[in-house]
C-alpha cells in the first residue's frame, strides 16, 4: 500500500480534475484507434480504389491492347496517397503536430487492416507487418468477353496436376487483395505478396458444351475432337467437322454431328450416340493460362479440370422395380 491519506488529500486539493462522463457510443478503444469507417476508407485508398486510371498507367504505350503487365506496388506511393488524405483539415501547427504523433500508429493499423481486406468470413485474421504487394493489369478482350475470370496466385509451384482444385484456404494459395475490372476490358489484380505462379482461368460456370470454332471472312467453321467415350479423354488425332444448317446462323446439325461422331468411334456400346454420350462429346473444359517459371514442367496444365467423365446408360436400371432412387 503506497498511497496514504495525507498524500491523497494533498493531491486532490491541487487538482482540478473533472472527469467527463463517458460519451454515448464511444468506447475507450475508439479514442485510441483510428475509427473503423475511417480506417476502412483509408485501406480502400491504399489499395488504390477510386484513383484515376491515368495515375496507374501514365502512357497508353505502357499497356497496349491485348497485354498483361506485371508490377510491384510502391509503398511510398501509397503512403503518400494516405498522407494526402490525412492532410485534409490540418489547418494549423497543432493539427500537424497531432498528425505527426499519430501517423506511425495509423500506418501500422492500415498495414494490418490491408491484409485482411479480402478475408473471408471465418478465416483467421492476418497479422504482422505489411509485406510487398504485387499484381497485374490485364487489358484484353478476354476481360470483356469472359466476365468473372478466376485468378489464382500461388506462393509456390503447385505440385498437383490437373484436376486438383486448390481451395481458397490452401496454404499454397496467395490472397488476392483486389480483383476488379477498371474498365470493360481492363482487369486490375493485387496480390498480398509476390506469387511464384499465377493462373488465370476461364470462368467455369458449370459444365459447358461447345465446339472449337474458326472464323473466316465468309463464315464460321467448327470442329470437335472425338472423345474416347470410355476413358473420357480427347483423342486429339480424331476430330469431326461440325456441320451447320444452311442459312441459319450458328444452327448446328445435331443429328449429323452425332452420326459423324459415331463413325469416328465416339459412340459407346452401340453404333449410335444417345444424349448422354452426345453430351459427353460436347463438354468443353475451361482453359487456364499459367504464368510463372515452373522449375519442373508439368504436362497438361492448360485445362482447369480434366475429370474422367464416365457415362452410364443405366437409367433403366436406376428405375427398375425395387430400386429406390437415392
Amino acid at each position, binding site marked *: 500500500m503506497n498511497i496514504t491519506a495525507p498524500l491523497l488529500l494533498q493531491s486532490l486539493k491541487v487538482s482540478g480534475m473533472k472527469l467527463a462522463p*463517458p460519451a454515448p457510443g464511444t468506447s475507450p478503444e475508439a479514442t485510441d484507434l483510428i475509427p473503423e469507417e*475511417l480506417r476502412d476508407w483509408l485501406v480502400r485508398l491504399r489499395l488504390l480504389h477510386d484513383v484515376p486510371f491515368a495515375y496507374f498507367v501514365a502512357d497508353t*504505350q505502357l499497356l497496349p491492347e491485348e497485354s498483361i503487365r506485371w508490377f510491384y506496388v510502391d509503398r511510398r506511393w501509397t503512403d503518400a*496517397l494516405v498522407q494526402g488524405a490525412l492532410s485534409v483539415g490540418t489547418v494549423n501547427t497543432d493539427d500537424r503536430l497531432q498528425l505527426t504523433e499519430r501517423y506511425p500508429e495509423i500506418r501500422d493499423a492500415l498495414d494490418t487492416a490491408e491484409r485482411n481486406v479480402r478475408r473471408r468470413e471465418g478465416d483467421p485474421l492476418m497479422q504482422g507487418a505489411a509485406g510487398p504487394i504485387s499484381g497485374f493489369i490485364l487489358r484484353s478482350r478476354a476481360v470483356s468477353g469472359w466476365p468473372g475470370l478466376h485468378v489464382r496466385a500461388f506462393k509456390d509451384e503447385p505440385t498437383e496436376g490437373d484436376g486438383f482444385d486448390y481451395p481458397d484456404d490452401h496454404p499454397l494459395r496467395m490472397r488476392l487483395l483486389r480483383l476488379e475490372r477498371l474498365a470493360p476490358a481492363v482487369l486490375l489484380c493485387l496480390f498480398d505478396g509476390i506469387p511464384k505462379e499465377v493462373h488465370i482461368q476461364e470462368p467455369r460456370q458449370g459444365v459447358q458444351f461447345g465446339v472449337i470454332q474458326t472464323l473466316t471472312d465468309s463464315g464460321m467453321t467448327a470442329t470437335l475432337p472425338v472423345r474416347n467415350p470410355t476413358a473420357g479423354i480427347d483423342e486429339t488425332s480424331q476430330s469431326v467437322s461440325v456441320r451447320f444448317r444452311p*442459312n*441459319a446462323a450458328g444452327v448446328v446439325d445435331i443429328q449429323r454431328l452425332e452420326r459423324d461422331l459415331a463413325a469416328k468411334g465416339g459412340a459407346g456400346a452401340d453404333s449410335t450416340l444417345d444424349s448422354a454420350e452426345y453430351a459427353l462429346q460436347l463438354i468443353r473444359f475451361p482453359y487456364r493460362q499459367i504464368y510463372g517459371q515452373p522449375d519442373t514442367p508439368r504436362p497438361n496444365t492448360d485445362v482447369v479440370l480434366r475429370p474422367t*467423365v464416365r457415362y452410364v446408360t443405366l*437409367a433403366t436400371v436406376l428405375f427398375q422395380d425395387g430400386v429406390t432412387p437415392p
Partner: protein
Amino acid sequence: MPVDQVPGNGEFLLYPNIPPKLLAGKYTLTAEQTITANGRTADQLPVDALDVHLDVRSPRLVLPPDQVLSTFPPAESEGAYGSRLPQVVIRRRTLPWERKVVGAPSTPLTPWLALVVVAEGEATLLPNVPAAQTVTSGVTLAGAIDADVGNCLEIRQSMVRTIFPTRKDVPLLAHARHVDINDTELMMGDDDGFLAVVVANRLPMAGRDADGAETPVKYTACLVNLEGQWDRLLPTAPTPVLTSVLIGLQTNVVLSAATMDKHVMGGPTNVRNVTDVPLSGGLVRATKPVDTMRYIADVSRDAAAAAQTRTSAGFSLTPTAKGVSKGEVSGVLATEKLRDPGIFDLDPLLRFPVLLHWRFTTIGSVTFELLMRNLDSGLLGTVARRPPADDAGRLPLELVDTGHVGIEQKTRRGDSVRAWYRGPFVPHPTDDSPSRRLPLAHASDQLRVVIPDGREDLSLASAFEIGRLLALANPNMVAALLRWRQLHYATVRRTSAWQVNAALLGAIDGFVLTKRIGSGAATELTRAMMRAVTNAPSQFLGSPRPLVDPGLKLPFAGDATTLMANAFGLPALRGDPGRVLETLQKTPVRVAKITERVGRVPGEAFTELDATVLGRTLETRVERLVSDAVPQLRDVQPTRGGTSRRTRGPSRDALDEAIDRLSRSRSTEPDE
C-alpha cells in the same frame, strides 16, 4: 446399386434420360381385394374396389424459378459465347420426360422441352398470354394447365424450320446428370445431385457488319414446350454445310404499299435502304406501319441462299416473286398488311409456350484460349513491341528503367517543362522496410523531388494530391477525419490534466495511468480507489468501533437511596419522598418535537402515487435481496393475489404491511 453409379470427386455421371414412373396427368388407382375363406368363394365375400384419384403435376407453361439451377450463358450477360451451346440446368431430373409429345417416337425417349436460341428479330416473345393462346391456334393442350397466363414465342413456320431442332435432334439435346454432392460447383444448389440438362442446338455467334468487323448480337434463349406441335419441326435437317453463315448487318428495307404489291406481283421494285429502323427490345414486333414505311422487311443479303432456305423449308413465295432482284421478303418483321391470309397461309405464325427465357449478348467470337495465349506479357514498363499506329505527332515515350516516364508539366509560373512521373506500380521490388517508409509529409510540395538531371520527380507529390482530393471529394470522410481529430484532442487534454496527479494515480494499486486517458478512466479510477480503501480502511476511515462497549463501573457508596439517586443523575432525589415527588413534578421533561416526517419533502402531501412508488421500490429491493440470498426461491410464484402488484417475493412481510397501512391511511385522510 452398383458402385459405378455414385460419382466420385470431380466426376459426374451422364444419363440419356430419366423417365418418370408416371407421366403428368390424372390417374385413377383402383385397389381390389379378393378374400376367400373355407367354404366360401370370392363371390360370396365381395370387397368394394377402392378408387384413389391421383394428379401427377408437372410444370407446363411456366417453369418455377426454384427448378432452374443455372443458365448458360448467364442471363443479361455479355460475352464471347459463340463457341458454346446455351444450356439450362433443371433441378428435377425427370422434368424433360414428364410429358409425352404426341407423334414423337418413344425410342429414344423424346423430351417435351427444347431450348431454342433466337437472335434479335427472328421471333417475338409475347409475355402474359392467356394459357389457351400460348399455342398456335388449332392446337389444344389436353389436361390440366398449371398457369392462367404464360409467355409464348410467336415465330414464323419458316423460322421454326430454320432455327428449331429437328425431330431427330430433340432427343439428343436433353440428358440427366448425376453429380458428386460434395462438389458445390457442379451441384449448383441442388438437393440430391441429380439434374436435368437441356442444351440448345445453336451456337450464339457474334455478327458481322458490312466491313467484316464483329458486331454484338442479342439472343434470347427460350425453353419451349413442344406438345402438340411436333409436326411443325423439320423431320430431318436439310443437307448441312460446313461453313455457317454469320448474322450480317440486317439490311432493313422500306417498301411502300405499291412496292409491296409490285414485289409480290413480280414487278420491278424500288427498294431503298433504311438504317436505324427502331427495333426496340429486339423482339418487340413492329406491327404498326410507321408513316410511309408501310412494310418493313428483312432482305436477305443473298437472294439465292434465301431462295434455298425457302425451298428447303417447304416455303416459297408465289412464283411471280422470283423475279425480284434483291432478295426476298422474310416474314419476321411483317406488318399488318403482311398478315393477309392469302400470303401467310404459306408461312403461318406459330406459337410455342415458353417456360423460361433469358437474354444475353454475344460480343466477338474469339476464344479465350487464343486470347490468353497471344497476350503480350511483361513487367510494367515494357514497351509494346510495335507502337500503335495512331500516335503520330506525339512525342516518343520517355521511359527509364526505374519505371519513370517523362510527362508534360506546367509549372506554377506557366512554363511548360518535362517532369518525371511514376505511378504506384513499378517494375521492380521496392524496399518496404520500416526505415524506408515515407516520412510524414503535410503538403504535396514536401514530396517534390528534383533529381540530378534537373527535372522534377512528381510521383509522390501527385499521389499526395490525389489522396487529398479523393478525401475531400467524400464529405463523410472529411467529417470522420475531423471528428476523430477532435476526439483525439479531447483525449489529450484529459490526459494532460490527469498527468498533474501522475504521482498519486501511479501509486494506486490496480490503476494504470495509460498514455492517453480514455473516457472510461474515471470508472477505472473509482474502482481502484475503492479497492485501496477497502484494503486498508483504517488509513482512510479511522479505526472501527468495537462491537461491544464496556459498561461504566458504578461506585457503590452510601445507602441505597443515594446510590439510586446518583445512578439517575438526580442528587435532589435524596431525602424526603414528598420533596422528591414535588421536585420531579416541577422538573420539565424534554421531549423531542417531531416536525418533519422522515423521507418526505416538507410541505408536500403524501399521495397515493408516493405510496405506490415507494411500495414498488421496496418490493423490488426486497425481492432482489431475497433472491440473492435464496437463489432457489427465484422462480417461486407469489401466492398473494392482486393484479396491480405482481411480485415474485416469497411472502408478505412486515414492511409490506406497513406500506399498505400507510397508504391506506393516507388515502382516506384529507390533504394537509
